[in-house]
């Protein structure tokens, strides 16, 4: 399985995301923002950082990168796409996910290990978790406050599209403690905290982040014709 990781000018966590994909057992394929070719990848990660300097609004300019035009089309066709932090902002700006991410309510950059409760486990990126599972992964953002109008929030909750909520403290003022959401089809997921930083005991607070990457491999194995998991390489 090939997981593409996009590098925009200003991406910071593309290296860690590629490493997490490899640790999960995938082949990591680096994708360049200026190249619309997705090189046949089976899934895409939009990493954290400050794409295009986050000028104007976080993710606003990245959304128009040549690679994004291809990713938006492919995501609508079912390609699994995970947006982490800045990647989540890009997915909202691209209208692949509803809502927006705004300045943290308290105006402080928050960088800490954060407990989350996983909710939706029927997505391409969370099927390896159990509903209600509590996980610990780093959060680090200045503009991570998820906002949407009440009707959209109600719809997300009614349709079971909140994939994780902050517990033991909301780091940024996100409405209804939402840390991550999915689209209607469950192939596109955005999450503000950083699963790619919690995949090894040496550098992370847990190995909980790995579940996002192993989940997508499981989803891809399940959707490919015939072969058992791991039989695709």
């Amino acid at each position: 399985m090939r997981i593409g990781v996009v590098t925009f000018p200003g991406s910071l966590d593309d290296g860690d995301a590629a490493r997490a994909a490899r640790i999960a057992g995938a082949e990591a394929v680096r994708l360049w923002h200026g190249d619309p070719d997705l090189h046949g990848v089976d899934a895409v990660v939009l990493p954290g950082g400050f794409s295009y300097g986050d000028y104007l609004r976080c993710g606003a300019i990245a959304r128009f990168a040549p690679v994004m035009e291809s990713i938006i089309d492919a995501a609508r066709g079912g390609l699994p796409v995970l947006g982490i932090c800045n990647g989540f902002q890009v997915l909202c700006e691209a209208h692949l996910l509803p809502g927006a991410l705004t300045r943290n309510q308290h105006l402080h950059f928050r960088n800490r290990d954060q407990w989350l409760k996983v909710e939706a486990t029927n997505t391409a990126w969370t099927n390896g978790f159990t509903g209600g599972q509590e996980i610990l992964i780093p959060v680090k953002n200045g503009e991570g406050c998820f906002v949407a109008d009440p009707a959209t929030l109600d719809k997300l909750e009614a349709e079971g599209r909140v994939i994780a909520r902050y517990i033991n403290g909301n780091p940024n003022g996100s409405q209804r403690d939402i840390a991550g959401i999915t689209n209607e089809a469950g192939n596109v997921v955005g999450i503000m905290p950083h699963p790619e930083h919690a995949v090894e005991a040496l550098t992370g607070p847990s190995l909980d982040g790995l579940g996002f990457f192993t989940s997508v491999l499981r989803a891809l194995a399940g959707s490919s014709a015939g072969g058992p998991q791991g039989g695709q390489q």
Partner: protein
Amino acid sequence: MARVVVDVMLKPEILDPQGQAVANALPRLGVTDVSSVRIGRRIEIEFDGEPDLDRAREIADKLLANPVIEDFTVRVESAAGVA
């Protein structure tokens, strides 16, 4: 040469923590009669030819503003009116 000015503001229902921080600083200047401050963004666009409000509106809708959280207005401003 005329330019198009785009004003982008957070929608009224969206919290503006930057504006609140500024409002909270005003008493330090001795200002005590301000109840609210909200911060937006002014963008000036100059076209090669005549200013085109429809194109400016499209640019604002697609890129300059995020309609999920922001409202915008566009208007033509003549250079003569500016020093």
